[in-house]
């Protein structure tokens, strides 16, 4: 025991090495025991912010390529009020300017307004409305369409198309000749058949 001469003082005990808390360890002496350290939290938050920024940039890039304004020629026109049109008649006042007929149905047929686009479905000529024969007739090859536009004679393969309609705030009929309905099944939709308000 006392064999070793006390020539050198015993070495001072080394201080306990610093061990940062690893993810799974919990220091029971701490009051707040969260499942992450400050370092981990900040790192996560930083990456999260970066990814959010990146994601936002990508979304912005996608939104960028969707135009807000196009330079397509206007296709929406106002056609006057429904009362300006005689029920049961095919009105050709806009045929020259917009290539359409406006038809207001008799009350017995529904009383609504629809617009037919004056383009023959055979090769694109402009047909005429023949009131005496109650049909639309194309001068180019003789295609015939009944009142309402269904093809029944000549080479036309499909009925005349109808244009999309809406009622503007000032009560006028608003037509969009750029959007047309080919299928008669779509003709009863409110966008194709403007019913008078009750």
């Amino acid at each position, binding site marked *: 025991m006392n064999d070793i001469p006390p020539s050198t003082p015993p070495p001072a005990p080394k201080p306990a090495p610093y061990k940062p808390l690893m993810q799974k360890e919990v220091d029971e002496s701490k009051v707040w025991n969260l499942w992450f350290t400050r370092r981990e939290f900040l790192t996560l938050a930083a990456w999260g912010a970066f990814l959010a920024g990146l994601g936002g940039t990508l979304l912005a890039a996608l939104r960028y*390529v*969707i*135009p807000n304004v*196009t*330079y*397509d020629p206007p296709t929406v026109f106002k056609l006057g009020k429904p009362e300006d049109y005689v029920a049961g008649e095919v009105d050709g006042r806009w045929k020259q300017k917009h290539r359409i007929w406006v038809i207001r149905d008799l009350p017995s047929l529904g009383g609504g307004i629809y617009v037919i686009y004056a383009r023959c479905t055979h090769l*694109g000529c402009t047909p005429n409305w023949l009131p005496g024969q109650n049909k639309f007739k194309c001068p180019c090859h003789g295609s015939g369409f009944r009142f309402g536009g269904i093809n029944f004679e000549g080479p036309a*393969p499909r009925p005349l198309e109808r244009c999309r309609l809406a009622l503007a705030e000032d009560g006028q009929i608003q037509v969009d000749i750029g*959007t047309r309905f080919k299928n008669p*099944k779509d003709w009863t939709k409110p966008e194709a058949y403007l019913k008078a308000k009750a």
Partner: protein
Amino acid sequence: MSKLQVKMTDIARAIRTSPIWRSIFRHGYQDTPRNRALMILSNVFLHILPVKVRPSAIRYRYTWRLGEMSFFLFWLLTLTGVLLMFYYRPTVENAYWDMKDLRFVVAFGPFLRNIHRWSAHVMVLLVMFHMASVFYRSAYKPPREYNWVVGVILLLITFLLSFTGYLLPWDQLAIWAVTVGTNMAAATPFLGSEGPFSIVTPENDMRFLLLGSKLVGQSGLLRFYVLHCVLLPLAFVVLVSVHLWRVRKDDFSAIPVPPEEERKKGVLPETWLKQNPAELDKKVFTWPNLVSRQFVSALVATAILTAWSLIGHAPLEELANPNMTPNPSKAPWYFVGLQELLVYFDPWMAGVVLPTLILVGLIAIPYLDKNPLGIGYYNFKNRKFAVTMFTYGLVLWFGLIFVGYYMRGPGWELYMPWEKWDLHRPPSSTAGLHNMPNGLGTVFLLGYGAAVMLLPKKLFKKFSEGLGPVGYWVVMFFVMTMLFVPVKILLRNAFAIKYIISIPAFNFNI
């Protein structure tokens, strides 16, 4: 040697030992093994190639040089394309007339334009053949699956490059081909205004995004120009770099071929290799063996394209006229197969669902094919199912293209390839077509699905087990969709059935 010759030699030596020369050309050009290695190693472009390569990799009957030629054509197209950009303005007022100027007043204009167009068509063809070639020699099996996926994306980019370029001449062919193509985008489910379950309007659907407008016009032209000249080539370059890098990293797939007698005995190359592992280490220098053959292949390709470009003028029809639809209006040839499918399927199916399934199916191939045999050489005997299904798909694809391109005339009526198109031929009657009643249709579809999905499990037990539990269902799903196309064609042509199931309220028809 005469005095002059001595002088010339001295000058040459002086140049070659000068600091300037030696800073650029780091090694000599004597044909030593060291220099052969250095030619590859010390060159930034060539060092994508390995210094030494197995002799089997050099044989042109392995890859047919298809990948290399596709890559070469990309650069030829870039070069000719950049030159064309000096004279072409992507505006509605100028595009067509600039094409006319290229044809009539630009020096070598017609030649450049033609070679650009013909190279584009050839590149699309070659990438499809390259994909087929990689499939047939199983060069997509582990560890090369990822590279196959990158390749499929490159295929898609090639199609898009060709499609965006197709619009730029702004003639009738261009505007209507793109109209057909973008109308298919409008048929996308959910995101297309005319597709099933649509949640968008024509003012903000996929088609509007592509064209920047409801019409095919100036904004569409400009977008396609930017896509064609900048975005898509950049994407291609980035991905092709990854693609070539992976070819190196995964070790080029060609394996040594057993000698005649062994092959005649029916010995599998894999077995033979196990018995002769030393064969794998037998290599030859890339410079000059591979590089010379690549160079000559590129030269031959250029010569053929030059001849074609001098003789055949690329088409330029009338100025684009949105009010006059030509009859027929066809998509570019590589999409005309899908357009042909429109006879049998609704646009959302033929133009969106089926192409998506084709792409997804292609991408899935390496992950579904568990057969380890055949890597690095052409093998049919040991991979009958895979080869049959792929070949069937390939034949169907090119068959549809053939019908759509050569056998469809005005009104998309059927014409024999030698028949003259008659604009006044009465349209074939669709009066006889009828739909299957929905009840019967559901039974039919379920029966068909059940047959394809369940029967193989009973009839080909070992094969089915080999695919794994998930793999089996996925593979059979794709087989089911692939076989569905001729079923629909048969139903329509033989039984005059238009739709098997039809729910008009949702615009849903199969």
